[in-house]
């Protein structure tokens, strides 16, 4: 966020002053990101913090925020704050699941495509192109609708539209390593293709995949909430941020219904993106290499 590194080099006189500032303070964005995530982690781990049962009617419908219901109640008289807090596990954990699933599938396909080349590679990459032919949420929406609305199907649908990014990146790394000496020497000494992929290539791509995955988490959570907004994720009584906002559209005057889940999504996604942004900065040249070669 701050360009202190460059400033240091250009103006040595300021050096002593910046030195006294601890490293972590120079990136307030990252600190903020971690603080937000920590808060949400506590909420997810300590159910006692949720004041009411998120599924039960606890008061009159559509009560504005007051001392008893800090974020008001919804159309069924359920406590809005409890629903927002309880929705964290659904949104965040399933967002993580998308990334894990997409990264695993993408890595496997990328390894196989890059290692074997030829028609295998061609088929895999044309599949990836096909996924990219559908912009944004469109493919996931169609897949989720065909599979039927449920949070599990939404995760599958989202992963189907997310794996190609990983496959491309992994494939490009494998292509650059396939002919390198440590891989070839093992192959010559009789190591089979599967073992070669698992022992030589997989460890070589893991770091890059983890970085890409870290950058994607925020987007994945947003994506999943979007599917729920379209009615294709969490099914109604379950609290989920995207579907809560979708349900709030018709209540113009009950602004609190949309504000709670909205702030929740923005805080979590922004937190992950702040951390991802710092990561991107630090790894800039290498990241460009990973993503650039995939072009």
């Amino acid at each position, binding site marked *: 966020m701050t360009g202190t590194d460059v400033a240091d080099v250009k103006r040595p006189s300021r050096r002593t002053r910046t030195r006294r500032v601890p490293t972590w303070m120079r990136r307030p964005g990252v600190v903020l990101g971690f603080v937000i995530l920590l808060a949400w982690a506590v909420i997810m781990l300590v159910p006692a913090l949720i004041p009411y049962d998120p599924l039960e009617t606890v008061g009159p419908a559509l009560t504005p925020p007051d001392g008893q219901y800090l974020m008001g109640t919804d159309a069924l008289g359920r406590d809005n704050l409890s629903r927002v807090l309880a929705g964290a596990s659904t949104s965040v954990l399933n967002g993580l699941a998308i990334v894990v699933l997409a990264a695993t599938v993408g890595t496997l396909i990328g390894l196989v495509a890059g290692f074997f080349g030829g028609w295998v590679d061609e088929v895999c990459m044309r599949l990836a192109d096909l996924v990219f*032919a*559908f912009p944004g949420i469109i493919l996931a929406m169609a897949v989720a*609708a065909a599979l039927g609305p449920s949070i599990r199907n939404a995760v599958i649908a989202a992963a189907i539209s997310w794996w190609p*990014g990983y496959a491309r990146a992994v494939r490009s790394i494998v292509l650059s390593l396939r002919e390198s000496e440590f891989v070839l020497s093992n192959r010559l000494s009789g190591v089979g293709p599967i073992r070669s992929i698992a022992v030589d290539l997989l460890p070589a791509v893991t770091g890059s995949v983890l970085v890409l995955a870290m950058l994607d988490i925020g987007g994945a959570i947003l994506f999943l909430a979007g599917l729920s*907004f379209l*009615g294709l994720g969490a099914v109604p009584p379950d609290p989920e941020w995207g579907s809560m906002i979708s349900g709030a*559209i018709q209540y113009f005057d009950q602004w609190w219904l949309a504000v709670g889940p909205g702030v929740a999504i923005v805080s979590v*996604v922004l937190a992950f993106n702040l951390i991802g942004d710092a990561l991107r900065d630090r790894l800039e040249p290498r990241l460009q290499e990973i993503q650039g070669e995939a072009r």
Partner: protein
Amino acid sequence: MTSDIATTAGVVSEETTPAGPGSSARSGGYGRYLGRRALTSLVTLWGITLVSFGLSVLVPINPETTNLSQQALANPEAVQAFRAKFGLDAPVWEQYLNYVKGLLHGDLGISQQTGNPVSHDLTTYAPATLELVLVATAMSLFLGILLGVLAAYLRNRWPDHLARAISLIGVSLPTYWLALACSGLFFRQLGWLPGSGRLDPTMEAPPHVTGFYTVDALLAGDWSAFGSAVSHLILPATVLAVSTLGMILRFTRSSVLDGLGSDAVKAARAKGLGRSRVLVRYAVRLASSQIITVAALSFGFLLAATVYVEQIFSWGGLGQYTYRASTNLDLTAITGVSLVIAVIFLIVNFLADVIASALDPRILLR
């Protein structure tokens, strides 16, 4: 999202890799490039029909249950008649052929929600959405390129930090929530801007020529309708524009930075050309082909993002239609829309590549 956007843009160059270095540039390189690019587009088009066929016919385990009433389901003869009528008892390849034959005649099935053919619905709703998306793309490109160039030019100074903050917030905001917030604030609270529909309710739509109210109003010389159409566009178009602003900004910044680091720019600077002159005449020009690519991408993403926005502004276009289809699980409409959007996106990407390769002949060599 940004990371896979970056690789999406790569589709262009990756598909054009082989054919030996330098072989194409001299004789008919452009024609060969276009031919190859058209071929890969056709392969993708075929893939798109496979996907939508799969999603509308194969994946839903029981098409009858989604299409027939409870009563009809209890009657085995009705189920059988339904299966025979829609060719569901034929082998898969035959079903696929029938499906493609239908597509060629513009048959996308009947929407359960409206009871109309999906293709009829799409042609009714498409102009509203295209108008909105074109305006949003223009806004987003204008701001994104301006800020992106500025951020690259003043790297690590405050405009760069500002641009980064904007793009960070842009990619972290759910579009539908921003739409709700803007509608609540500027329409319902402050009443500054209209936030519902495409025209003032008391006005009549201008005579249909293009389906774009702004253009039609101008053609009819109806200035009050034009003013109303423009004021109705502002809120939804701005909300949409914000959703791709971050992507365009980041992309422009990095490709202009690449341009600024190139030998051509160094040579121009060494020759004594001023910084801003070099920026516009060299660096931005070097980046222009990449900016065309990202413009096509963001057009596609905005087309998809209307699903989040139109319902909130009662825009009455493709996005609202899709939102309703999606929340009511109208599968025929959903797959129809996704097919059409993918095809539009394919065409736009193809055109963008044609323009980009004309602007930057190096693409032919890659």
